[in-house]
């Protein structure tokens, strides 16, 4: 009995440590974002005076509202395109037999290891020539490319688990091929596709280096590089509070995703990285 209680206590402590360690930096950001400009530099953990000025100030800055719109649009479009292309490829890899399959997986693995900084220069030069510099497409294309390997690995791991015989069974029962695919296979494939979409979205949402080097104005700049160029509540205050507030705003969608889809994210990460 006492051993059990001690074990429970031990686990409780360990879990508390993990939770605090994981969330503490975010707590600090929230606290900073709620401080007034006068108290932002006081080094206190809990704000003396509370205010939402930082939040209202960033939403009155073009640079942030436009960056937020760009981030959402660019990440969403990249996700849709990458998941579509990866689904086609992963379906072929999981289900069809054709030479070059291993080559495609090998090439994807190589790209997954590729350092983005190695192509930033050429892309900068190419995008300026092609008129893609500082446009949504100019960011969507690299995001799509760098998430395709992950998406292909994850999806083909999921697709391999689908009992494809069910499709034929449905056809035997009188369903047309289209019906069989839509009513039987699609519902089975959807969770994998959805999981992959979350991972791709997180990547595009997170990127800094491409956004920093391939954009220059509010036309296509996403939130991560925009945060750096913030000004404070007034011209003469330090942007610390505004940065913290913006940081909290971009964190919210991710935290919501993690809370709702924790199982899926775990499944996706491990399926793509280990089983692939």
């Amino acid at each position, binding site marked *: 009995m006492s051993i059990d209680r001690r074990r429970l206590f031990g686990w409780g402590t360990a879990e508390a440590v993990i939770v605090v360690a994981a969330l503490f930096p975010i707590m600090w950001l929230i606290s900073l974002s709620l401080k007034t400009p006068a108290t932002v530099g006081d080094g206190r953990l809990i704000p003396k005076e509370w205010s939402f000025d930082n939040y209202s100030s960033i939403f009155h800055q073009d640079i942030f509202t436009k960056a937020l719109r760009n981030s959402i649009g660019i990440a969403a479009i990249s996700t849709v395109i990458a998941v579509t292309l990866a689904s086609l490829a992963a379906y072929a890899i999981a289900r069809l037999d054709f030479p070059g399959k291993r080559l*495609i997986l090998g090439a994807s693995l190589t790209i997954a*290891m590729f350092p983005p900084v190695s192509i930033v220069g050429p892309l900068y030069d190419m995008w300026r020539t092609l008129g893609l510099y500082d446009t949504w497409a100019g960011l969507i294309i690299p995001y799509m490319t760098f998430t395709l390997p992950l998406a292909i690995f994850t999806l083909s791991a999921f697709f391999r688990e689908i009992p494809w015989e069910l499709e034929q069974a449905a056809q035997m029962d009188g369903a047309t091929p289209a019906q069989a695919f839509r009513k039987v296979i699609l519902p089975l494939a959807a969770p994998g596709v959805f999981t992959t979409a979350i991972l791709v979205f997180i990547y595009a949402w997170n990127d*800094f280096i491409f956004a920093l080097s391939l954009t220059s104005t509010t036309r296509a700049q996403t939130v991560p590089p925009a945060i750096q160029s913030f000004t404070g509540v007034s011209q003469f205050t330090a942007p610390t509070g505004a940065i913290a507030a913006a940081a909290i705003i971009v964190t919210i969608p991710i935290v919501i995703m993690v809370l709702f889809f924790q199982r899926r994210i775990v499944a996706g990460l491990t399926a793509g990285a280990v089983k692939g």
Partner: protein
Amino acid sequence: MAATAAEAPPAAAPAKRGAISARTRAERKLGWMLCAPAVIVMLAVTAYPILYAVWLSLHRSDLRFPDKTAWIGLDNYVTVLSSQLWWKDLFHTIVLMVFSVSIELVLGMLLALAMHRAIFGRGLIRTTALVPYGIVTVVAAFAWRLAFSKADGGFVPVLLGLEKDPLIVTWSTYLVAILAEVWKTTPFMALLLLSGLALVPDDLHEAAKVDGATAWQRFWRITIPLMRPAILVALLFRTLDAFRIFDTVQVLSNGSNRSIETVSQLSYNTLLTRLNLGLGSAVSVLVFLCVLLIAFFYIKFLGANLAQQRGER
């Protein structure tokens, strides 16, 4: 089974060879067609630019002096490799990589064991541990910068009564960068290790327990050897990622403090701040070669291990 046989085209029975090859051909064609879009995009955005980078690196190409572009062979590489800056930045990168990855491995293993064995609240730790993984790297770096920087009013210098700003002193900047990296990416490491842990059968542990093995012995003799492939995959991914470190250092150094500038920073600064495409591309190509080298060693190591494991079984 029956469904498969019934589904096969009727022609398959009499002229088996011809029919199969026609089907195979159709299947191959479909396979290639489905993979083509993804492959084309990946090649166009990585293979072509890297070749272009190689080509640029062999030229004198400075956007500030566009008419002075000329073929200069390996001169850019000579310039980079004989400069102190490259070696200093490579050193910074390797220090950050080695420390953050090894700390992550230990913490990630502890976290994975906690996620695997927790008696209660497993969902809670899994969810909260995932939060740092999802956080934008720049945001994470800002959280640490705002906590540690004296100029930004951080609480750490106040708490520790520091005279100097920790983000100006080299060793403490290293420390903060490593902390930020470890905080952000330990969950990723832990998840990969967790999937390895799931492969270790419980009855092996039970049997060893019956034979009187301690928890420590079971961990080293059973868990670790069986998890080796998962550990190596996790290490490979994290090492490559850590070598490419950019966001964290860029934010922590605030664009001005170059005390722990990494090779990615060097490449970025030469290319986009100084607009020297030739020299910058040479740095980019060298970064790429370093990544290839790291991957090569791991895969050789990993391959050898996998083969060895298969031999043992």
